[in-house]
């Protein structure tokens, strides 16, 4: 797949989901409660990458993860910009896109879109004002994707201001890390 080497994509697939085995499986040590035989019907926590492949082959059914449950939806509906999505799932949107088709819940897609739309405006107004401190509460509730969006706007604004100030035209190659600051 096009995203095979994408680090974030790999990390998103490490998220755990709870599944119910539709088929038995022997000789595997993934269910701490049972030895190496998993009966049909047993409930197990699996990483998404395993749950997804097993679901495709009808070996398991996947439950809707907590970060997309009713409680989160109500909070998002009430005041989406205030909801701490990052603590629920750092890749809330990416994970949502991956989980929606395999839990057969069409409303997740709609939830993602409406959450993104309403939080997007908040990010926009805060992002383009360079003065906004990154450490504030608003920053900590953003998901990774929102932070990418935020950082893109911030860096574009910052490089424009640097150019306008007429800063030195070369930067020291960042890979060398911070050279001794010799600003007289």
């Amino acid at each position, binding site marked *: 797949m096009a995203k095979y080497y994408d680090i974030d*994509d790999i990390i*998103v697939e490490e998220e755990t989901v709870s599944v119910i085995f539709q088929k038995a499986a022997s000789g595997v040590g993934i269910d701490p409660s049972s030895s190496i035989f998993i009966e049909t019907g047993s409930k197990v926590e699996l990483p998404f990458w395993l749950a997804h492949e097993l679901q495709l082959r009808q070996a398991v059914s996947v439950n809707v993860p907590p970060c997309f449950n009713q409680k989160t939806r109500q909070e998002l509906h009430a005041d989406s910009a205030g909801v701490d999505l990052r603590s629920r799932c750092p890749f809330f949107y990416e994970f*949502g896109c991956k989980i929606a*088709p395999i839990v057969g819940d069409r409303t997740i897609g709609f939830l993602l*879109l409406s959450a*993104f739309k309403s939080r997007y405006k908040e990010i926009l107004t805060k992002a383009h004002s360079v003065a906004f401190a990154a450490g504030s509460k608003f920053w900590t509730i953003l998901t990774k994707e929102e932070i990418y969006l935020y950082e*893109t*706007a911030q860096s*574009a604004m910052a490089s424009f201001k640097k*150019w306008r100030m007429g800063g030195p035209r070369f930067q020291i190659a960042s890979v060398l890390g911070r050279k001794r600051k010799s600003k007289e």
Partner: protein
Amino acid sequence: MAGQSNHDLSLFSAEELEFIAEDEIVDIVPNLKMSALNFISGDFGPFTPQIVTQVPLWLATALKKRGKCSICPPQWMSVEKLSQVLEAERDSQEMSDQLPFHYVEISRLLFDHARDNIPDVYMVRSLIEDIRNVRFHKVETDLEAFNGRTIAVKIKNLSAMEVNIVRPFIGRALQAFYKHDSPELIPDPERVSDRRPQVINNAPRRQLRR
């Protein structure tokens, strides 16, 4: 949307935009006699003292730096014209089209290299600063108008530098909308976004903060 492949590879740096803007043609009044210059980028001159000649901005600033000419500021860089533009910008959500595409870079280059050739240079400079701020703010309010799967967005009258600043943001925002509003995720009937491309600057009229 996560882990965008570093599509930022394709971003133009402000220096590169300045480089592109340096090909814009300006009028200069040379004070030297020099035969025509047959550059790769075109033929310029010959140069005779006090005779107005048209050259690219990079050549104009190079000659000016060496005291060989004075640069005639472009017609739009006058207090009178810029006050008109500022007024127009403040009065409508539309972006006015009276400034050239590279007005930010051109004005900066002239402030850096030909300040003494610009009448009321401090006034001109602050007018351009105000115009730029008003336009940036308007771009921001237009961005807020994004709300769904837009496939194409028309950007009316944005200048090169303004576009370059919002480009990465718009790119990723549209990408996110495009992905989250995609048919596989949300079946058609529930989709709200209109199919027509949005004209970016027809956001609802709003009283601009003076």
